[in-house]
């Protein structure tokens, strides 16, 4: 069984992001990059699936040379091999999904894991698009997963609760926090990763239909207001909710 896990290389969530001078990209100075946090759940689930079903896991990432750091981390956690689809340009989600789908098809992977979203652009869309392009079933925002033979049973988060869904292979799963507890890249694993290969090739080109025109920070949130600490404040609270916030 070939299992693929698609990983992205994103700015550390603790980094203070600044918009670059071109107004369209982020300022790279001082920004540290990490494995997309949701992809860590995807990597862990791919490894657990391999441990249960056998086979091998390949990590695929699309981006510049720096993405090799993220692939290397996946290899250190236990992934068998890596593929870097090289591309330094900015692509939209569909164009990324098309290139990934092509590689997944070439790899012959039948189970594909993604993080539910990348915390850089937060589009939450590449996993689903890839499934659609491949003609695979897909389960998004998965918090538990069981694969037996061809049958896939997964629990996914929905508004206010969870639902259990069943489907069959081949499948794309996008991982949500809670799916598992990602393992550490053990120091032995890090050393073993040195001997694993990362195949590099140019990412297949597809036209991007989305163009970034301008990037700006969201406006500063207004500070909260305390109208009182006991029941006597209720009338004022209702007035503010109705007249200022206009939510009731």
């Amino acid at each position, binding site marked *: 069984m070939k299992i693929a896990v698609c990983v992205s290389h994103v700015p550390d969530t*603790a980094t*203070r992001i600044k918009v670059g001078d071109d107004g369209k990209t982020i300022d790279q100075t*001082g920004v540290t990059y990490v494995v997309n946090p949701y992809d860590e759940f995807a990597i862990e689930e791919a490894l657990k699936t391999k441990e249960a079903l056998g086979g091998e896991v390949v990590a695929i990432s699309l981006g510049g040379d720096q993405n090799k*750091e993220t692939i*290397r*981390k996946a290899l*250190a956690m236990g992934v068998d091999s890596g593929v870097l689809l090289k591309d330094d340009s900015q692509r939209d989600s569909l164009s990324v999904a098309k290139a990934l789908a092509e590689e997944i098809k070439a790899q012959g992977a039948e189970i594909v894991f993604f993080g539910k979203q990348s915390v850089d652009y937060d589009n939450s869309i590449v996993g689903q698009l890839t499934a659609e392009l491949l003609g695979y079933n897909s389960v998004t925002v998965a918090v538990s997963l069981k694969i037996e033979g061809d049958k896939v049973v997964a629990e996914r988060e929905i508004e206010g609760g969870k639902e259990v869904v069943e489907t069959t292979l081949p499948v794309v799963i996008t991982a949500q926090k809670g799916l598992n507890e990602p393992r*550490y*890249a*053990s*120091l*032995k*694993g*890090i*050393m073993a*990763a*040195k001997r694993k290969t990362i195949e590099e090739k140019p990412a297949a080109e597809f036209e991007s239909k989305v163009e970034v025109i301008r990037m700006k920070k969201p406006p500063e949130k207004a500070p909260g207001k305390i109208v009182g600490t006991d029941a006597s404040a209720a009338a004022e609270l209702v007035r503010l909710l109705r007249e200022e916030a206009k939510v009731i």
Partner: protein
Amino acid sequence: MAEENKAEALKGGEFLIKETNPETVFIPEDINEEQKLMADTVREFVEKEIMPRLDAIDKQEPGLTTSLLEKAGETGLLSTSIPEEYGGIGQDFNTNTIIAMEMGPSHSFGVSYAAHTGIGTLPILYYGTEEQKQKYLPKLATGELKSAYCLTEPTSGSDALSAKTTAKLSDDGKYYILNGQKMWITNGGFADILITFAQVDGDKFTAFIIPTDSEGFTRGEEENKLGIKGSSTRALFLDNVKVPKENVLGEIGKGHYIAFNILNIGRFKLGAMTTGGAKRFISVAVQYANERKQFGKTIGSFGAIKHKLAEMAIRTFVSEAAILRTSGLINQRVEELKAQGESYSSALIKAAEEYAIESSIMKVFGSEMLDYVVDEVVQVHGGYGYSEEYPAARAYRDSRINRIFEGTNEINRLLVVDMLVKRSMKGRLDLMTPAMGIQKELLSIPSFGEEPEGLLAKEMEAVRKAKKAALMVAGSAVQKFMQKLGEQQEIIMNITDMVIEIFAAESAILRTLKFANKNGEAAAKYFVDMTKVYVSEALEKINLYGKHAVSAFAEGDELKVLLLGLKRFTKFDPVNVIKLRREVADKMLEENKYCF
């Protein structure tokens, strides 16, 4: 490191008389991808396993620290200095330094970890027989066995060799029978084996490996300590404890080699861990300064707070520069010795001994730097710094021990001068020739050469002269007191403090220059700022320590000459340190963390 640079590596203590090419020093930017991944794993481990459990660890919840040690073992963190043939992953010295730095902020757990992996494991690795290594190291690497190091006794602390514990060979010659008491034993509550020192035949100081399931072994109660409350610290009692003679570690009567050589590495590691700890605690203070508002502004916008944040960062930056510089020297020497055919163990022992002066310096510098930092972290937090609700209080009390264990800072200060003088007498380190040169220079008219130009060139020149100041004071003190210098502890401390400032200031300059050569002066702006502040204040301190020392032993014309010399060798134009510190603080406030 390039071939041509290798030849330039200085011997231990030589920094006082020679210059270092910045390209040869190891700096954080030299850390490779694999080392970064390992550092990430340690940081994640500390973040996920230790930080959420600090309270439980401090309460010594039964089984918690031992299970965390085992988990660390699973992750590979206990085996980084153990070679592969003994179940470890045998990383080089620099990698071990980086890992120690990342383990730095882990409070009590870091102490348990360091005792197990350092003083608890290394004696067997370095001095054990093949059988002992095969028997113990694989289990120490996984954490299946936990270890403790027992040197101190109720009446022998700094004077370790006066230990009273005895070991007597049994009549049949198969066993040693040990009797005595050990004090302040880290991991004493749960250790499975003890590296213990005892006197054979009354005066042959010898190391033993003692399993704690031996009959006659008992543990005292947990000490109620000022800090690192989560680390187990107990008195241990040996009452006719019988161990096979195969458990002798190293040679009979050679225990002091083990004790002192292991301490060389322990001291270096302490410098690394305190540096790592400081980096994290500064971030805590910076974040608080960005959040807390008074008089309608965040407190970070006030100069008094900026001063604190910047000064914490400067000392930490300097400490990191010096610890990695030392690590790089030891690493290089280990690799050279291995290439010459020395075994892994003997290469490490020899390299650590070579740089024992630098390791003692880093023990003192790191522990005092961290104590300064945590004190100011509390202060930045104001009243909240005194509350257990905030992390500042724990950082404050846990830091204090570092100035005491692994040889008190006083003992280490004495050792620095002692080692310098001994090496000079033995001809290992030629301090005499340059010291004589300075005597002549003192009586000549100072030359007014041109101002040095280039990045930090003035600072480099100032450190060059400060070395002369230290050699002048040390040389005159040696001439004055000869063999009795040891009795002048205050003067020795003054000389060591001059030496420490020189090593620290020079390390900061070297780190900054290497960084700037590679990344450009603009990228090195804050490094330059911090180095300038540090160097300018270091020179004032060097001048002051020197004055205290010479005023104690010289008078009349001799004193006049010495004071003039000090003035000449520590002259430095004042720098606008307030402006520079503000820039450093503003950068951290913008990044919301320690960002150097």
